[in-house]
């Protein structure tokens, strides 16, 4: 003889209810859920981290302005001109006179007198 599955499946519901309601009663379960529902999310961590970030930003800006090392000041500073030496060292002068190339640049050739 076969037994229909449908009534067995429906009969499983009350049997499972007996399994999970054996431990704590309704008041205990509801009290646990309600305690979490009523708990408010604390605001102080958000406020504290916001204040800290603002203080760090303002503090570093003020100190930077006082010392003149802000990024804006560095960008506005005039570029240092390149230092070009146009004076020959005594060695270079000697070698030019002797007609020997002391450096990689060719020695100047003296023009004939007219």
């Amino acid at each position: 003889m076969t037994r229909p599955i449908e009534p067995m499946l429906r009969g499983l519901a009350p049997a499972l209810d007996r399994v999970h309601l054996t431990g704590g009663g309704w008041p205990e379960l509801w009290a646990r859920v309600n305690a979490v529902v009523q708990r408010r999310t604390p605001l102080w961590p958000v406020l504290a981290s916001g204040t800290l970030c603002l203080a760090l930003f303002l503090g570093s800006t003020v100190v930077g302005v006082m010392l003149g090392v802000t990024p804006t000041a560095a960008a506005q500073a005039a570029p240092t001109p390149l230092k070009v030496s146009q004076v020959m060292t005594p060695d270079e002068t000697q070698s030019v006179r002797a007609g020997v190339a002391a450096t990689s640049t060719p020695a100047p050739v003296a023009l004939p007198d007219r």
Partner: protein
Amino acid sequence: MSDMDPELLARACAGQEAAGAELFAAHYPAVMRLCLALLGDVADAEEVAQDSFVYALKNIRRYSPERSAFRTWLCVIAVSRCRNKRRRRLLDLLPLSAAALSQAATTREVEQALAAQGLRTQLWRAILDLPADLREAVALRYLGGLRFREIGEVMGCNDKTAQSRVRLGVERLRRVLAPLGADVDWQALEAAV
């Protein structure tokens, strides 16, 4: 479409504890049964069922009675949390042997409670062995008491697909339990549509 008294909903939205308690008492058993069938573990099911109620009661203003019944909305929340829990279990870093022992212990806990009731232990094991989507469909239908359209809303499919998943699930259960003398009453299943 709502299965809830509008006055009760208004009181729950206003944060009245008595209204929350009334909703909890009316719907907790169905949600807990559903979680138990989807997770197979009493402790996990209790955690997920209670977490679902905490979310539902904190966000009750988001519930729209025109869109679905309150029980369907609760089932959507619970099923989604059960899926997350199963996913986390797969990533669990517990050694396999410890996880298997823990699962076996909690399954035995349910089985012992069902043992006195004939075929129900085998039926419970067969439900836990079903693939996830068929298990969800069967649990929503027979343990959550939802209609096929509502099952479709929870599972994100149409009512025909939901019906076919329930049929497939029941057919698999029948195949497993057939040697023990269980059969499916198709007429009753069709009549329930």
